[in-house]
């Protein structure tokens, strides 16, 4: 089963696309695992996710911690700290 990933701001620019569908391997359980997995997919991902501690993640449009499990997620948003307002 594939999951939709959506990227914003400089994460989007560095990865080079606004969204994609990927098949998440069984050994990827948490948000932290997912970020590490993505970094293995190529230089653009490594560049975008170089400092995972600053990366914010939302599952189905709600903020989550990096320790959160991703099982059942339909859409995972990955982005830098927010700077609106």
């Amino acid at each position, binding site marked *: 089963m594939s999951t939709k990933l959506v990227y*914003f701001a*400089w994460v989007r620019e560095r990865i080079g696309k606004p969204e994609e569908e990927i098949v998440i391997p069984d050994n990827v359980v948490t948000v932290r695992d997912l970020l590490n997995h993505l970094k293995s997919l190529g230089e653009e991902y490594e560049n975008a996710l170089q400092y995972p501690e600053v990366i914010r993640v939302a599952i189905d*449009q709600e903020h989550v911690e990096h320790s959160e499990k991703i099982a059942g997620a339909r859409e995972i*948003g990955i*982005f830098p700290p*927010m*700077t*609106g*307002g």
Partner: protein
Amino acid sequence: MTVIPTIRVQSTDFDLQSEIDTLTMGRRDIGAVVTFSGLCRDECGALSALELEHYPGMAEAEMRRIAEMAIERFSLLGLTALHRYGKIMPGENIVLVVAAAPHRQAAFDGASFMMDFLKTSAPFWKKEHAADGTARDWVAAKDADDTARDKWR
């Protein structure tokens, strides 16, 4: 009576007076209305524009979550939060919050709380367009904004 916040994310500008009127029209129980408008500054001429990116759907949902917290916490009688996206020129509006309450402290606190949380948790990102056309940098998040949010805990 449950107070339902008005939340909108839009590319167009907003009219402050009509947003206030929508909130207060025909009511006789509102004693205080506080508005906050956030405007694009040119940073002493260094900036030609800001480009606002957002996460459609989540932006509205997150603003609504914050607004509902503010209404509950300060017993607000009305709350409106609007945020623009796209290219915004210096002097133009970026964000508008309108908070209504029986008394002034709740209205001030409601608007201020809404802005502090919106800044740190609503999914919007600002990119600067330099006046000289050279650089285009994403604005960095500020520790001061986290500090401002944390004072409400």
